[in-house]
């Protein structure tokens, strides 16, 4: 049982992380510009990147939670990945700019050490990131929320960047001015890495990448629990926003009727939806192992029966 205190924290943490990072980012960028510290400026952008992704998630999740309609029968969940691709493309651009700027500063030779105030700002950033990340980790672990844990780890990496920047500024003032742009270079690389890895994962989801193999195995296991299900012909999965869309074909005994097959398929669908909350919808079709050409004579008799039973006309020539 999760304590009430943690549930309350769980509601506060996402808001606090966004507001905290936004304030921190603005503070770092302003101080970085005033003191002329490239490292601090890059770190400010790094903190701002988190805010950008959080805001984007809030906006696109709102869009993807709209009910699916005739035009978007699969929902609008893919907009989350589209938003992510655009946000990370922008971040990649920013990181390249930082890299170019700091490399040019390193090679040009005349670098002025930043004002000492930048150091204090960097220390504040370390503390703020430490508090945010440990708070987020505590709540994330208690509530078992991967998103919150990922967010907290993000702040951990921000903290490491801030440490690098503060060391850079400190040593820059001790006679090694080149260390400040080098710190900026490191932060720029960190932003670039984040943009590329997260951007690629969003792109993969846009191309309908399947869920990881172990998740698929879990789904198969649930379906195979039913003794009527003899096997699984195929299992296609793809992500639509935070949720997954499942497309599955089960193999059942060829002697069973369509009515029974439908009942089994419905039951498997219900079981999957019960078991995994992150499934948006399940499409289950059924088939059998046997080769159908052997059944052709029997098939003809049955069509005639249907023809007698319903008003629908048949074109027997085809």
């Amino acid at each position, binding site marked *: 049982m999760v304590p009430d205190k943690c549930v309350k924290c769980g509601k506060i943490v996402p808001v606090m992380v966004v507001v905290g990072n936004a304030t921190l980012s603005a503070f770092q960028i302003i101080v970085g510009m005033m003191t002329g510290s490239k490292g601090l400026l890059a770190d400010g952008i790094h903190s701002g990147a988190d805010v950008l992704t959080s805001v984007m998630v809030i906006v696109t999740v709102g869009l993807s939670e709209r009910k699916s309609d005739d035009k978007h029968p699969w*929902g609008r969940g893919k907009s989350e990945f589209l938003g992510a691709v655009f946000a990370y493309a922008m971040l990649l651009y920013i990181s390249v700019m930082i890299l170019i700027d700091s490399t040019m500063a390193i090679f040009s030779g005349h670098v002025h050490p930043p004002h000492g105030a930048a150091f204090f700002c960097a220390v504040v950033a370390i503390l703020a990131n430490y508090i945010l990340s440990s708070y987020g980790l505590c709540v994330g672990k208690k509530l078992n929320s991967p998103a919150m844990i990922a967010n907290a780890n993000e702040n951990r990496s921000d903290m490491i960047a801030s440490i690098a920047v503060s060391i850079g500024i400190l040593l820059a003032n001790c006679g090694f001015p080149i260390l400040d742009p080098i710190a900026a270079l490191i932060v720029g690389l960190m932003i670039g890495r984040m943009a590329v890895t997260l951007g690629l994962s969003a792109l993969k989801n846009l191309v*309908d990448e399947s869920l990881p193999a172990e998740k698929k195995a879990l789904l198969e296991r649930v379906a195979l629990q039913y003794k009527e299900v003899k096997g699984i012909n195929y299992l296609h999965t793809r992500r639509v926003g935070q949720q997954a869309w499942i497309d599955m*074909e089960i193999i059942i005994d060829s002697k069973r009727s369509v009515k029974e097959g439908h009942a089994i398929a419905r039951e498997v669908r219900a079981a999957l939806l019960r078991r995994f909350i992150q499934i948006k919808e399940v499409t289950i079709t059924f088939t059998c192992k046997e080769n*159908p050409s052997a*059944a052709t004579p029997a098939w003809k008799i049955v069509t005639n029966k249907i023809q007698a039973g319903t008003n629908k006309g048949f074109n027997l020539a*085809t």
Partner: protein
Amino acid sequence: MSVEKAKSLKKCESCMTKTIAWGLIANTFLAAFKLFVGFMGRSRALIGSGLCNLSDVTSSIAVIIGVRFTKKPANARYPYGYGKVEFITQVLISCFMIMGTLALIYSSFITIAARVFVVPHMVVFFVAILSAIINGLLFKFSHCGGEELNSPVLRAHAEHNKIDVVSSLLVAIGVLVARKGMHWVDPAIAIFECAHVIHASVIILIDGLKGTMDTNMPEDFRDEIKNHILSVDGVLNVNKVLARQTGRHIVLDVVLELNPDLNVLQAKVINQKIKSLLRNVNKYIGHVALQIVPTEK
């Protein structure tokens, strides 16, 4: 899909790859030449047109990457294939086009505001005409290929080639008019051209975004599919047809009613008939999920 059809598609595909490669080379030269002559001959419009060719080059590269991906067959990690890469490259192409033209609009406004007009050289006129002819041919090929292969990215690329034709012709006209003494015409044409390019790019962009968003196909298409399925023996009713595009291919999600007393094997026969019928009438139909519900008696 019949063997003959598959063969003709393959032929079309290899012809397409060649066209794109030639287009890439031709447009690289045209862009370099136009930018050079544009800077020397001080024609804003020609510089703009050169940028247009340059964005065409990036778009060709995107098309080549996209087509290479689409060819990869579906696998366990990508059960629906790589078709949607085409939509993403399409979005990319339109973004390149928009960015390139925004830069040009800015520079054209500056020229008009600063009133530094220079009479462009006649060389500009001939380059523009040459570029119009080359891109006209490229358009013809990519348009045909886009329709034949049902490839969204090729269609976007064809649109891009068309823009190049229009922009080159406009430049040619602009040069002639400017030489008659109306100097403001050249930058003004550049601005007009940009508006046109941006309009076309936004259409391509929205199209690509729709593709990645899993939009349902138009109702008349779905009705047609429904009627085809209803024509198969044993199908009593079709309750739902959903269709989405993964690049060139169409993924169908159908709910149909069968007699509840049929056995599974017979249902399988009907399913296979439906699938082969659908693939015969429309060669772009890929994965089909046929959900069967028994008819209530």
